C-alpha cells in the first residue's frame, strides 16, 4: 500500500515522538492575526524568547478592521485600536513581516496566503484560526490552533500533536446548474454531520474536485472544520501549479521547476491507504441553504426542512433548538423566507470568482426594497481586481454597498453586525446562534450566487431561476 499526502507531509515534518501517540511537528508556515496572537507574543516577551523563524511567519489584520473608512486611525472602537497597535508593535518588535492596512496585500489571512503564493503544496501550516483548513486546497496540511499553540509555534516553530486519521471523500457525478463548491461542502457536512470528521483529516478527491478551480477547492477545504475535521486537503495538480506560477512569494524559474517536482512527490500515491472512504454523487443535487444553527442543518433549496418525527434521536435536541431560534416550521421550504440582510464575503466566499458569480446574478437588477446588501472583498487585491473588472459598479448600481477588505459580518468583531432578529443570507461559514453579532440574529448559509439572488428578491430563492 502507498502513502497518502497527509502522512507523507507529516513524516517529512516530524521532529520527535513526544509520547506513544503524540509527535512534535514542524510548522513550515505560521500565519498570524490580531485576535489570537497578543497573549502569545506576551509570553515570549516575559520569557525573553525570540520568534524562532520569523521568515516562516507572516501576519495580517482582518477580524477587527472596519470595512468603511478603514484607513482612519485611531479606529472608532478603542478595543479594536488597542489590538491593532498590539499586532503592529508585536510584529515590529519580533521581526515578523506584517501585511497591515498600508500594504496592498492585506486581507483575510486565508485569502492573502494563497493569493500571494505564500501557501504552497507540501507545507505544514498553522494559524490561530479554525478556517486555516482553507490552505489544504494546495495539498498542505493546514489547521487551526489556540493561543497557547500560537505561542509554541512562535517560540519553537513546532507543535505537540496527535496524528490524524485520513478519510478519503470522493466526489463524483455531474455538477448541476447553480451548484457551486459551497453547495458541495454544505452537502458533505449535512450528510456526514458536524461531528463526522472528528479525529480525521479529509482528502477531497474524485472527478468533481479535479475539475474545480483553486478558489473553489479553497471554499471546500475552508469548511472542513464545520464538519468536525480539523484539516482538509486536495492533492496538488496542474491547476495548483498554474495558480501558483508568478505569484509574489512563489518560487520562480528553475526553483519553480524543482518545486513542482517536490509538489508532485507529496501527492497521495495511487494505491494510498486511507482510514476511511466516503463517496458522494452530486448529480441530482441542487443549491443548498442552511436553515438551522449548525452548518450541518442545511437542505437543498427545493426540499422540505426535516420533521421532528423523522429526526435521529441524537439530533432531536439540536433540531428543536434550531427551530426555536430560527422560527421556521418543520416540513416547510426555505424558498420565500424574507431576508433583512445579504452578505457576500468571508474567508469561505470572499474571492474574485465568488464576486464574479454573484455579479452575474446581480447585473442589471436591483436589490429588493428594505434589504441591506453588502459585498466585502476578502482582500485588497480581490477588491482592486474586482474594480478593474467593473464588478464594484455592477454591485453599486444594483444597490449593494461596496466595502473594504476584512472579515466583516462573518463574525461580529468589527462594526458590521446584525441587529435584533434580522435574517441574513450569508456566504460565510457559520450559522451559530449570535455569530453575526446579534444574540437573536439568524444566519442562512448559502453560495454567493444564492445570496445575490436572495438580495434581489428580498427573500430566499432558487438561484437557478436567474441562470
Amino acid at each position: 500500500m502507498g502513502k497518502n499526502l497527509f502522512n507523507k507531509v507529516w513524516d517529512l515534518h516530524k521532529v520527535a515522538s513526544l509520547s506513544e501517540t503524540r509527535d512534535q511537528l514542524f510548522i513550515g508556515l505560521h500565519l498570524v492575526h490580531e485576535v489570537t496572537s497578543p497573549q502569545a507574543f506576551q509570553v515570549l516577551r516575559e520569557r525573553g524568547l525570540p520568534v524562532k523563524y520569523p521568515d516562516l511567519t507572516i501576519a495580517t489584520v482582518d477580524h477587527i478592521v472596519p470595512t468603511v473608512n478603514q484607513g482612519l486611525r485611531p479606529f472608532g472602537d478603542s478595543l479594536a485600536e488597542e489590538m491593532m497597535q498590539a499586532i503592529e508593535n508585536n510584529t515590529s518588535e519580533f521581526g515578523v513581516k506584517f501585511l497591515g492596512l498600508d500594504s496592498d496585500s492585506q486581507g483575510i489571512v486565508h485569502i492573502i496566503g494563497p493569493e500571494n503564493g505564500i501557501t504552497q503544496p507540501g507545507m505544514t501550516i498553522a494559524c490561530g484560526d479554525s478556517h486555516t483548513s482553507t490552505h489544504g486546497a494546495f495539498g498542505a496540511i493546514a489547521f487551526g490552533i489556540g493561543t497557547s499553540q500560537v505561542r509554541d509555534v512562535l517560540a519553537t516553530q513546532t507543535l505537540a500533536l496527535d496524528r490524524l486519521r485520513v478519510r478519503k471523500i470522493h466526489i463524483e457525478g455531474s455538477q448541476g446548474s447553480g451548484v457551486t463548491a459551497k453547495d458541495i461542502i454544505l452537502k458533505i457536512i449535512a450528510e456526514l454531520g458536524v461531528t463526522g470528521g472528528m479525529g480525521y483529516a479529509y482528502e477531497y478527491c474524485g472527478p468533481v474536485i479535479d475539475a474545480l478551480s483553486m478558489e473553489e477547492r479553497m471554499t471546500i477545504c475552508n469548511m472542513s472544520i464545520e464538519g468536525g475535521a480539523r484539516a482538509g486537503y486536495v492533492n496538488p495538480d496542474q491547476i495548483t501549479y498554474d495558480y501558483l506560477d508568478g505569484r509574489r512569494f512563489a518560487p520562480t524559474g528553475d526553483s519553480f521547476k524543482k518545486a513542482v517536482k517536490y509538489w508532485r512527490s507529496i501527492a497521495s500515491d495511487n494505491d494510498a491507504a486511507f482510514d476511511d472512504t466516503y463517496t458522494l454523487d452530486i448529480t441530482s443535487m441542487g443549491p443548498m441553504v442552511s436553515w438551522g444553527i449548525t452548518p450541518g442543518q442545511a437542505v437543498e433549496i427545493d426540499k422540505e426542512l426535516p420533521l421532528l418525527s423523522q429526526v435521529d434521536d441524537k439530533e432531536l435536541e439540536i433540531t428543536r433548538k434550531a427551530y426555536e431560534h430560527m422560527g421556521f416550521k418543520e416540513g416547510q421550504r426555505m424558498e420565500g423566507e424574507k431576508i433583512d440582510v445579504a452578505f457576500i464575503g468571508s474567508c469561505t466566499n470572499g474571492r474574485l470568482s465568488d464576486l464574479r458569480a454573484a455579479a452575474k446574478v446581480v447585473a442589471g437588477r436591483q436589490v429588493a426594497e428594505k434589504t441591506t446588501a453588502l459585498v466585502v472583498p476578502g482582500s485588497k487585491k480581490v477588491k482592486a481586481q474586482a474594480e478593474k473588472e467593473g464588478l464594484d459598479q455592477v454591485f453599486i448600481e444594483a444597490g449593494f454597498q461596496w466595502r473594504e477588505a476584512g472579515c466583516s459580518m462573518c463574525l461580529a468583531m468589527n462594526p458590521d453586525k446584525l441587529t435584533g432578529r434580522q435574517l441574513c443570507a450569508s456566504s460565510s461559514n457559520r450559522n451559530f446562534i449570535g455569530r453575526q453579532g446579534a444574540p437573536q440574529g439568524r444566519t442562512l448559509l448559502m453560495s454567493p450566487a444564492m445570496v445575490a439572488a436572495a438580495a434581489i428578491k428580498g427573500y430566499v430563492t432558487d438561484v437557478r431561476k436567474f441562470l
Partner: protein
Amino acid sequence: MSESKSIANIIKGRAIPVTGNDIDTDRIIPARFLRCVTFEGLGEQVFRDERYDIEGLQKDHPFNEEKYSGGSILIVNSNFGCGSSREHAPQAIMRYGIRGIIGESFAEIFAGNCTSLGIPVLTGKASAIQQLQKQAERYPETVFSLSIDEKSVVYNGKKVVLEMSDSARTALLGGTWDTLDVLLKNREAIEKVHSGLPYVTNFNN
C-alpha cells in the same frame, strides 16, 4: 504559563450540568469579548448571551443558578466547543472556576486548548453523561471526584468509567501539558528538520 507542572490527579468538587449538543465557542464566549489583548476578565463573560438577555436580565442558565455556585466540574453533552479555535473559550471557563470537564464528545481544537491550559477533558457514553447531569441537577450538593489516572468519576461511592486521549492524560499526569518547555528542548532536531525542508532551501536539496 511558563513552568511545567503536573496537575492534581484528582479533581474534587460539585458539578454544573450544561445540557445541549453542539454548543459552539461563539456561545461559550461571544466574539465581541475577543476584542482584548489579555485573557483577564473573560471568566465573567462566559456564556454571556446564554445567561443574559440584551437588557442584561438573567435568563435560565445553570451558570446563573445559586445551587451550582462554586461548582468546579462542568458536565456537557456532544460536540462541546465546536467552531472557532478561540482559546478564549476554555480560558473563560477556567477563569470562571471550572477545573475539569466531562462530556459525550468535544471538538478537537477545543479539547486541545483545554489540555494546553491544564484542564482535563474526559468523555463517556451518552447515557452515563446524562445520568451524571441528572445527579448534579437533582442533588447539586453531590461531590464528584474526577480521576485522570483512572479515567473515571466517582460520586456517592459509585464509579463511572470515562475515556480520555492518551496524549492528554500522559501530558497532564507527567506535567508536560504546558508544551512550550517540552518543545524548546528539541532544538537540534527542530533545526535539522528545518534545514531539510525543500521549500526552506528554495528547492535546492
